[in-house]
């Protein structure tokens, strides 16, 4: 872990979404980078969505499909001229199929510094249970 943290970050260009459904509004769509991990109680999703405000972020979960969509406002004023453009901005969009049954009423989402942290608690019956094997 310490080894991983001390290395230099490599440039990873934003991945443009190749979506089966076309957007009705023109514009770029990117897939945010995510970390997803699971404990016995919940699934946590962390997504990098720089430039997205809480108002412009929508999280939708239905039929086990989780959809994240974030709108980004143009970063510059109209009277600014480009000198060097290395990254483009656009919408963030990503969908996941969740295998475990999620307790919808306890979903918690936080957005800090452009990182979304989404806690998806599992319902009681989806939690793994240790089964005692009796002898005799």
């Amino acid at each position, binding site marked *: 872990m310490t080894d991983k943290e*001390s290395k230099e970050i490599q*440039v990873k260009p934003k991945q443009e979404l190749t979506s089966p459904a076309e957007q009705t509004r023109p514009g770029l769509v990117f897939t945010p980078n995510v970390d997803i991990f699971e404990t016995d109680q919940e699934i946590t999703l962390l997504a990098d969505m*720089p430039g997205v405000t809480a108002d412009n972020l929508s999280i939708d979960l239905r039929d086990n499909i989780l959809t994240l969509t974030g709108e980004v406002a143009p970063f510059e004023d109209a009277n600014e001229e480009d000198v*060097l453009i*290395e990254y483009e901005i656009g919408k963030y969009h990503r969908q996941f199929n969740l295998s475990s049954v999620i307790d919808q009423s306890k979903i918690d989402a936080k957005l800090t510094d*452009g990182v979304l942290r989404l806690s998806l608690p599992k319902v009681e019956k989806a939690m793994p249970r240790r089964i005692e094997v009796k002898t005799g």
Partner: protein
Amino acid sequence: MFYRRFFNVPNWGFSKSFREFDRLRREMDELFGALSGGTLPRLSAGVFPLTNVTEDKENYYVRAELPGIKSNELDIQVTAEGISISGERKIPVEGNNVKYHRREREAGKFSRSINLPCEIDVNKVEASMENGVLKVTIPKSEAAKPRQITIK
């Protein structure tokens, strides 16, 4: 340049030839990227963080996407010719008994320096972080600002 069309912002700065070339190259990249099914690297320095530099009459604006980095974790140095941005992105360990499904976010150190085309006012540089986007406002020096000349 596509976001300009997307957001219906009028096109302003297409006068300089290198800018036109940059746009052309990016359009070619899009085209070949679409044919080969991948995205070719854009015209960039290849150093994290990727930055966008814009200017108006008074200032240069340097922007970079740095999600999850607090403003006190960034070190911004200003010299007469440009600025350097360095820091470290830390992703905290999430307990011992977690099982990862995906791990795409990266942690690590970074350092980037940007040279600006003209002289800047070193004392008035301001930086702000908002929603994971860094914005550095760098005023141009008095000598470098465009001046209107009245004809007597």
